[in-house]
């Protein structure tokens, strides 16, 4: 039998390397998936440009942060990027509205099928992608400042006397707090406000919403604004947590779409659930459990190998497998959404 401290050590180890990272990564995916799912529910197409929209928003935040830093502006322990966030949201809104005006609107008026719009969004994705690389380049950029840790692993160990420690990153806490605030605000808006109800009505039954006097142009505009804000927030939070690199945002498309579809596309609650499911699966499957088992198993029987189900290089396979299984077994997703 392992001792209590061993069990605690194992749990702390798991908390530090799987639970906490999954919670913040899941929040970032959830915010990304919310944008995809809202756009799918209301504009009725899968927006492949969403990952690069996140990159664009994060890029603006990086540039504004650098500028603020050069002026000596700082938020103390918090990252300066939070100050840059509103500007980034504004710039991203402008970008998506321009794309809507000059690209998507034409296909909407033609009543193009969703597949065509999805392909159009691939084109927009390449353009956004190019704009970002043109402005800031393809390389890794660091822009996080302030206090890196809220609780250091060493302090945790000293305080508890355990061998293992949980380090709580400031960026994780910010991610989780911001996600909660954004999600509460979004659900309040969708369920309580007149415009939010009109958006849900438009998503539910477009013809009847039009008959009820809902102005479709206004709904489309507001949907883009919300999507741009969600994408920027998700992009900046991810950048603060890891670092800013345009290509990683393109790669995030797969887990984000997997999250939206697993949760039930068109369903905001589903997008959040899906985000955490994907994040926890990804981290749980790619974590090396060797040390974890060393605490729990009797001496002499601990495993020699890393006990890692999948190398982190293959982490995208996890989203992919979950996506394929969900599409085969329950294509509507967990919360009953639309079938793509």
């Amino acid at each position, binding site marked *: 039998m392992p001792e209590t401290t061993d069990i605690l050590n194992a749990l702390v180890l798991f908390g530090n390397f799987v639970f906490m990272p999954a919670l913040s990564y899941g929040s970032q995916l959830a915010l990304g998936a919310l944008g995809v799912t809202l756009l799918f529910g209301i504009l009725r197409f899968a927006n492949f440009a969403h990952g690069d929209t996140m990159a664009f928003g994060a890029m603006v935040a990086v540039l504004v942060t650098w500028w603020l830093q050069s002026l000596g502006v700082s938020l103390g322990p918090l990252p300066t990027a939070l100050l840059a966030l509103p500007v980034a949201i504004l710039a991203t809104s402008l970008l998506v509205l321009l794309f809507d005006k000059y690209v998507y609107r034409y296909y909407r008026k033609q009543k193009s099928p969703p597949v065509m719009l999805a392909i159009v969004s691939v084109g927009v994705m390449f353009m956004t992608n190019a704009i970002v690389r043109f402005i800031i380049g393809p390389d890794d950029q660091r822009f996080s400042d302030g206090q890196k840790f809220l609780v250091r692993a060493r302090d945790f160990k000293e305080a508890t006397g355990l061998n293992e420690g949980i380090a709580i990153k400031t960026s994780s806490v910010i991610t989780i707090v911001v996600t909660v605030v954004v999600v509460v605000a979004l659900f309040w808006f969708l369920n309580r406000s*007149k415009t939010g*109800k009109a958006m*849900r009505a438009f998503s539910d039954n477009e013809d*009847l*919403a*039009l*008959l009820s006097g809902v102005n479709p142009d206004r709904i489309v505009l507001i949907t883009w604004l919300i999507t741009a804000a969600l994408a920027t927030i998700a992009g900046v939070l991810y950048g603060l947590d890891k670092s800013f690199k345009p290509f990683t945002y393109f790669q995030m498309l797969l887990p984000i779409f997997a999250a939206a579809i697993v949760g039930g596309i068109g369903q905001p609650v589903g997008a959040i659930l899906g985000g955490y499911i994907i994040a926890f699966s990804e981290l749980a499957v790619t974590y090396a459990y060797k040390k974890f088992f060393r605490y729990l198993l009797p001496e002499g029987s601990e495993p020699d190998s890393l006990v890692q189900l999948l190398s982190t290089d293959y982490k995208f396979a996890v989203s992919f497998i979950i996506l394929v299984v969900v599409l085969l077994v329950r294509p509507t997703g967990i919360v009953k959404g639309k079938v793509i």
Partner: protein
Amino acid sequence: MTILVGENMTGGYGGADILHSCTVGVDRGEIAVIVGPNGAGKSTAMKAMLGMLQLREGRVVYNDKDITQLTPQDRVAEGIAFVPQTNNIFTTMTVEENLQMGGYLRDSGIDQTIQQIYELFPILAEKRRQAAGELSGGQRQQVAVGRAMMTEPAVLMLDEPTAGVSPIVMDELFDRIIEVKRTGVAVLMVEQNARQALNIADKAYVLVTGENRHTGTGSELLADAEVRKSFLGG
């Protein structure tokens, strides 16, 4: 005088004409029904009056005003409400939210109107927090009519309100529609169940291949030997 009338309407959905100089009208506080065999253009006539198809000839007059060029949305804003035959509710929204969406264009007095609708359809008050998609067929139709009534319309157009509901529910729906009429609303409806519809009709139109075949009060048409023989099964 009639509050809403489509005069000599001729037109279709782009291809061949479906309506051939067809005239349909309704006045405040009365029920007008359009009956006729399948493919007679009953629904098409109603949709033409709402502006969902372009007329080649003829015009639609509402309150002595020519509204032929108005879009359906504009006509709704003017006081013409329409309940489509299918997809006529927001299934994922609650009953109350459906009613609120019906009153979307109004700035005030929505809660009062919702109370009036609840008095008219007591079952909706009971189910106000339930998703409309979870209700039975008859209850859904009441939500649909209630949503349309939220604009406090002068004219209420119903496209086959009793399609797919049981005879008992149909009678109940007709009772409700009579009550709607008593509030001073002009009710125009297309119906498959011709005999029952003529029973409650103040005015009735029998359409055949997009033309007016018979016109009269409900009881006149019910008594008409030719109408009985051709459309009511003897």
